[in-house]
């Protein structure tokens, strides 16, 4: 069991006998998808209103802003 867990990113399956690698991958993918979408809006999107709303936070977080 332990040697099986050392290589792939699916090693999280070792955490729970009932959880499949697919469930872990789906959860992680969903989180990456939503996280990237939110991050794009916060830090990169350029429509004027989004830029203005996020302006001070973008500068503070050191995103390129203008």
């Amino acid at each position, binding site marked *: 069991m332990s040697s099986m867990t050392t290589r792939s990113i699916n090693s999280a399956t070792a955490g729970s006998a009932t959880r499949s690698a697919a469930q872990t991958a789906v959860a992680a993918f969903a989180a990456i998808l*939503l996280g990237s979408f939110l991050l794009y809006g916060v830090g990169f999107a350029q429509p004027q209103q989004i830029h203005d709303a996020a302006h*001070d936070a973008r500068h503070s977080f050191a995103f390129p802003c203008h």
Partner: protein
Amino acid sequence: MDLIRRLFTAALVAGVLSGTAASVVQQATTVPLILEAEKYEVVTPPAATAAAPAGAPAASHAEGHQHGPVREVGEGVPVTLDEAIQRIGLTIATNLIAGVAYALLLGAAILLAGRPVDARRGLVWGMGGFVAVSLAPSFGLAPELPGMAGAELELRQLWWLSAAAGAGVCMLAFAFARNRLVIAVAVLAAALPHLIGAPHPESAEGAVPAELAARFVTASLGGAALFWAILGSVSGWLMSGLVGEGEPRPALRVQPGTR
């Protein structure tokens, strides 16, 4: 579904807490510097063009300046209390969303790594996040104030992303990869943006005083460090039951003797 719900809940809590802390620190440190810097944003080009008829209306509300660039209070600088409150509110909302976004990405990485976490290990993950998206990009593109000279925005955004992604991949490879080739490629990915060099303007002619800019850099990095410390430890704490539970010898599993 249960896994997704727990992962997203952890990210929501960690993001809101770290975003709140960042908001408090920002209002005390970076935001006053931003407001100060906006006073130096050059609104009108040097006086040669101001002599034209079109320059006359602009001159009426900016007192006594015939020489050099015309500096006016930027449009965004809040004048009334309502504007100030709205601006602070939007900044706080942005910080909370940024916190949740980063917490989702960090949580996904923790989940995929599959190693046990707790608040202390989460702190290490959080510091990794700080190095990846704050320190590494700042090494080439210093945190900038409004009014500072910068190269084309898209180029800088692209460079920022590659520096952050490269640094993140590099740290993950050092932590988890077995294959030396993978580690070597990851090191290259982290180094490449810096070897190419960040896009900078041909001449640094920003109007912001250097002292303000220097204070802003340290304030921005310090605030980000606190943000990531909270984000990482709360994520690790809330995900401790989510990753690696039930492993027989979690800490000693990989390479006995290395710890």
